[in-house]
């Protein structure tokens, strides 16, 4: 099947019910998207599917066909959110970080703290206590 990931057309040989998470990490060799719980609880595998945050562990590859997929690799490393996370110490073990950043991308410009809390309600971090994450996003 043909996918468009981070602006690049990719040809992938995977069964249609393969998890998008596995397509990205294994077939596309993009390991930035992390697997946490594997059941849509933790948000570590969040990617954008046509601009909307989704859990890649709950999306069949077939649903990504003809859609635009954006992963953390698509931000290039110098995105304002990535810089803010580094500057504000918003990562400790780092497993949740790509998902947090991808979920934050869906926020409107100049979000309120409530906006951030709602947008990230589906992302769980077991290290930071969230305050540094919220601070980074608000100042990105």
């Amino acid at each position: 099947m043909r996918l468009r990931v981070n602006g690049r057309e990719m040809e992938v040989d995977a069964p249609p019910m393969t998890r998008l998470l596995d397509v990205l990490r294994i077939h596309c060799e993009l390991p930035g998207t992390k697997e946490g719980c594997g059941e849509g609880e933790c948000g570590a595998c969040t990617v954008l599917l046509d601009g909307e945050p989704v859990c890649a562990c709950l999306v069949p590859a077939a649903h990504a066909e003809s859609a635009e997929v954006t992963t953390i690799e698509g931000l290039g490393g110098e995105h304002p959110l990535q810089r803010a996370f580094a500057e504000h110490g918003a990562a400790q073990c780092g497993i949740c970080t790509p998902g947090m950043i991808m979920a934050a991308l869906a926020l409107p410009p100049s979000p309120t703290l409530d906006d951030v809390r709602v947008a990230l309600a589906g992302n769980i971090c077991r290290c930071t206590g969230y305050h540094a994450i919220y601070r980074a996003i608000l100042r990105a």
Partner: protein
Amino acid sequence: MRTAAASLDLVRPRSVDDALRSIADDPSLAPIAGCTDVFVGLNAGTFAGTRFLDLWPLEELREIGIRNGAISIGALATHTAIQESPAVVSRVPILAAACREIGGAQIQNRGTLGGNVANGSPAGDTLPVLAVAEAVVVLRSATQERRIPFTSFFTGYRQTVRRPDELIVAFELPPLDQVQWFRKVGTRAAQAISKVVMAVVGGERPRVAVGSVAPTVIRCTRTEAALAGGATFDEASRIVESEVQPIDDLRSTADYRRRVCGNLLRRFGTETQR
């Protein structure tokens, strides 16, 4: 994923009619849409089905509109689309409220109203709302369409009247002019499965529905009759506590759930100042 993806077939219809023909030919097909429940089972290796019917691309099942005075919500309307629908927000704000408390944004972007109902979990957050709204479930097969009152849709734990060759295509909600109220009680606001979830409609014919307290979502008809007969909320709360049949499980205890049901009904009374 514990289930081998290569062992799974996906039939991809191009229209609803095409989908109905496929499921008539092979009723073993499991309909899927946003997959937020199905993939939990596949990831855990607990989902038995191996052949799936992909409804997700069928745009005609996403429509939300007004028909003959009722609001019609396509089975594939996502929880996000329902929250953003002016028709839902103005007519059935408790449905938008329920959708806002399902999972997080990622789940709301993919999970559908049809899926929440078809999954049949007694903890499904939209189910008490559909019960008090007296919604109608529109079931369609290749040969006929049936309209089933929501309160008759579930026959037991995760059991429904849907026949293997039918698809849920829409829900129809008649106008609600009375005060509406919804409350979910869980460990946290997001990403938590309900310990108790309650929806109430006030007025001369009060309606009370509760989830997570019985094998299916239930309408509390004795409580409703008491309220209609002028019972105080303290009296009605005692009745609702005796009417629900909760169990102890990993999320809560039966005693706690009973107490919460009574408290929620009192809270409805306080907040709506009846």
